[in-house]
């Protein structure tokens, strides 16, 4: 029964998981200062509750689950402070006329080119994606990260971030439109 239990060794946390946890936090927060803060909080919480660690999961999984909770908490707090302002959303659809609601000619999606060098393309794409993600308004970013990156249930995201089950799709939709346009603008088509 006890033979499979995992042990905890706080002295090795930094060397074993430090970069992994930091990178995980950084890619979701787009800030080194915030990422370091949440890593500190994670270790403090982990040390406080380490006696309750039952060893059912690995030490790594356990630390990641604490960090994940810290990231959700962070977004919950920040997204209640920042309401979405309509003014800084550059709507790519026509506002009036016969083609109301259809793509504005200058902002309609262009082709993203062929997949010649898949690996190079992916690393370039990821770098642009990360940059564009950091430019999203806080509320859009928080919904997008929790829903698309973490794949958390819609009801739970809404409960945490204070949106409704219908406007969450509008927020996600706008986040996607902004990300898409940002990627396209920064994409170097060879």
């Amino acid at each position, binding site marked *: 029964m006890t033979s499979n239990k995992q042990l905890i060794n706080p002295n090795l946390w930094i060397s074993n998981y430090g970069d*992994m946890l930091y*990178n995980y936090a950084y890619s979701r927060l787009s800030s080194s200062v915030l990422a370091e803060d949440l*890593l500190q909080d994670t270790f403090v919480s982990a040390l406080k509750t380490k006696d309750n660690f039952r060893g059912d999961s690995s030490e790594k999984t356990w630390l990641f689950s604490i960090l994940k909770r810290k990231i959700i908490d962070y977004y919950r707090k920040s997204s209640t402070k920042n309401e979405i302002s309509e003014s800084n959303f550059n709507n790519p*659809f026509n506002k009036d006329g016969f083609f109301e609601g259809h793509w504005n000619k200058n902002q309609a999606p262009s082709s993203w080119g062929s997949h010649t060098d898949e690996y190079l393309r992916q690393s370039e794409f*990821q770098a642009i*994606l990360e940059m564009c993600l950091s430019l999203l308004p806080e509320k859009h970013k928080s919904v997008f990260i929790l829903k698309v990156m973490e794949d958390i249930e819609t009801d739970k995201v809404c409960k945490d971030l204070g949106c409704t089950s219908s406007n969450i799709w509008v927020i996600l939709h706008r986040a996607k439109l902004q990300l*898409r346009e940002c990627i396209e603008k920064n994409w170097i088509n060879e």
Partner: protein
Amino acid sequence: MNNDNNIIKKLKNGMMFSCDTATLLITKREHTKLTILDGLRLQMHLASCKFCRRFDEQSKEISAQIKDFSNLKSNNPIHKLSEEQKNNLSDIIDSK
């Protein structure tokens, strides 16, 4: 003439979505099931709209890349802790 325009507009809105609505449903479809009617109308819209078909493809690519994001990086992290940050964190762990 004005009357004709109104009829065309009504027909257009009744049968087909605008691109704004179509792209909203594309996003929604990634996470939840659409109603049968919405699904059919979206298919109809996509069949005739090149830009929304592109959006659909690009949207899928963005989601797939986002999911790869952390997995890809956890094996070979792009962002690493500096020595100073490591020392700070070690101090915190040691002090507890």
